């Protein structure tokens, strides 16, 4: 080995960060599955757990997987295969959050069955109002991996 990865510095910090994120993700995934299986409605404040078979069931399962990816990759993050697992965890969250946001956008623009061609300004903005699904909340925290990738390639 010639150079060391920039991720070796502050290794503990990354460990703690992804431990917390991983546990939170895991918890969201499990809640999502339970809510879907029991068929209950679950909405507190700005958080809404989807409970349909597709977004709640498959989506919940994928969030659970994301949590497992985080937890299995967080040790020795400067090792490329470990970093890769954490990155894959984030990619799973991006897929769920990304498709959620895409669905919101496609819903917000047309006027709906009885409306005009396009939505009203109010209706448009209303689509983006909370509550949001867990993946949306996880999204900003998952973006930290981009910083990690950057750090990894910056040799020290």
């Amino acid at each position: 080995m010639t150079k060391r990865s920039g991720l070796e510095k502050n290794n503990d910090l990354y460990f703690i960060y992804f431990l917390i994120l991983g546990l939170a993700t895991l918890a969201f995934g499990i809640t999502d599955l339970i809510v879907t299986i029991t068929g209950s409605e679950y909405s507190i404040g700005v958080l809404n757990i989807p409970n349909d078979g597709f977004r709640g069931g498959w989506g919940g399962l994928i969030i659970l997987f994301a949590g497992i990816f985080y937890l299995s990759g967080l040790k020795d993050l400067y090792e490329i295969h470990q970093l890769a697992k954490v990155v894959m965890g984030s990619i799973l969250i991006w897929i769920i959050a990304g498709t959620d946001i895409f669905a919101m956008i496609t819903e917000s623009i047309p006027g709906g069955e009885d409306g005009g061609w396009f939505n009203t300004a109010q209706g448009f903005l209303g689509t983006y109002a909370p509550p949001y699904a867990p993946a949306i909340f996880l999204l900003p925290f998952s973006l930290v991996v981009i910083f990690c990738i950057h750090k990894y390639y910056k040799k020290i």
Partner: protein
Amino acid sequence: MKILLMGHPNVGKSVFFNRLTAANIIESNYPGTTVDYTKGYMRLEGKDIEIIDVPGTFSLEPKDKAEEVAVRMLHESKGSKVMCVIDASKVERGLYLALEIIEQGFSVVIALNMWDVAIDKNIDIDAKKLEQILGIPVVPTVGISGEGIFALVSRLKDATPVKVEDIVERTEGIKHKANTPDERWALIEGISKKIVTFGEYQHTLKDAIGDFTVKPATGIPFAIAVLYGFWSIFGSFAGFFTDGFLVKIFDEHWLPWLQAVFPGGLGNWFYALIVDVGHLENGVLAASDNCFESFGALSSGLFVPVGVVLPAIFIFYLMLALLEDIGYMPRLAVLIDTVLHKIGLHGYAIVPSVLALGCNVPAVGATRILETKKQRFMMMTLLAVFIPCGAQIGIMQDVIPGSIGFVMLYLMAGYFIFGYILNKVIPGRIPEILMDVPPYQKPMSRNISRKVWMRTSGFLKVAVPLVIFGSLLVNVLYLAGTIDWLGNILAPMFEGWFGVPRETAGPLVAAFLRKDLAVAQLSAIEMTKYQMISAVVLVSIYFPCIATFAMMLREGGKTFLGSLAVLLVVVFTWGGLLHLLWKLMGVA
């Protein structure tokens, strides 16, 4: 002079072909994209030169039908020059084929393609030295950026036949000839020692993720997420255009306009064919208020392909192109390999299967990458029977959004169960293959947009005329009373065995032309949710559409009769079983 583009699968031959000619060939990041040869013309020194994109082949002993085409092309083209494309990051493998071609007496130029990948991997190749040893032009190229292609073409004139003995001599240190595979490999090793140096190579993030996406424990969760994303985007996008805008345009503007300006009016047979057959309301003929029910060639006939199916097909092909070019498909193939082995196929069967979700026609062609007759027959039959095409899925999403998941699952179960049975009863072997997994790549917008455009416009050219013709035909049959007659004769079968209304006869006639049209017509028939599911399943598994039919006949020849026999068995068992299931559940 004629030029053949030859080389291993997935080394960039089609990229070269598209650059050299003004043609458009599908290029994708997985082996076996091109399964038939394509001719094109290149202008060189004021002359048009024929150039042929040949399917990829590993050696001159063909192992599948696509490779057979390649070898046959070579044998039919004595005297032409061969542009041998080699993956520079795997020179040894490519040189084997090059040596075989040289041995046959062809004039060869070698393109060391993927030069950029070799540099990334710290592989250093002395192209000058290789040229000197082989005695033929060798040019480093990067297909995707076009680097080196001009130089390659300008060296074509320097290509002359060389003797392998001379190559052996120039390699030095090789004492024997190169007539057997072993001797050839020994020669290649000798050459490679002289020209290739491997530098230190560190695994990159791309490689690591590449590894994890093929290992089952990490790859399967990832595949689930990819399919989730695929389906979710597909639904949102198609819903945005169809429900958001196109339904409105067709139902509130196009149909009323047609009804107002078209001569004739309700009850007139010509008006019924073209615009609106109407429906009975308390014994009075009333105008339709949507394009699903009007059945006219210009109303339903346009609404189905343009209003519903076009957005679905477009987004499907866009995402498929992304997955193809990133290089995800071969990974999916490896992941599903064990499962598909149980039904006598192997992982690469996923390529025709996924293509079939877009359109069954190219999928039947793609079965050429499978090795044995048995596998090709099974694959063709299974996909024609059990895989609904993108057009049909698009319309199902609109007509039976709540039940589409079940329909897909039921069809998938059929695919595996009948695959298992076919594998047991059909004689023939299933060879093991080693799957080549290319590295992940950044997709290029130029290639993506070209592919999506080619496939989507290809769809429109076939679908629009067929749907319009199909609605005309079914309308004529209705007006002539043929459909009612057919429905009455077949009523015991429809109602007794399959548990669907006898009116299903009409859509089933339409299904032979277009499945999307058939599902649209089903939606106008009064029935329960469960009857609807049965009817949609019937439409899927009963005859393939006419275009697929023709392709199967072309690719399969006589085995097509076998496919038809299987199909009949499947329709009666799998269709009847669903009725039984409903009965057990107490809903039929």
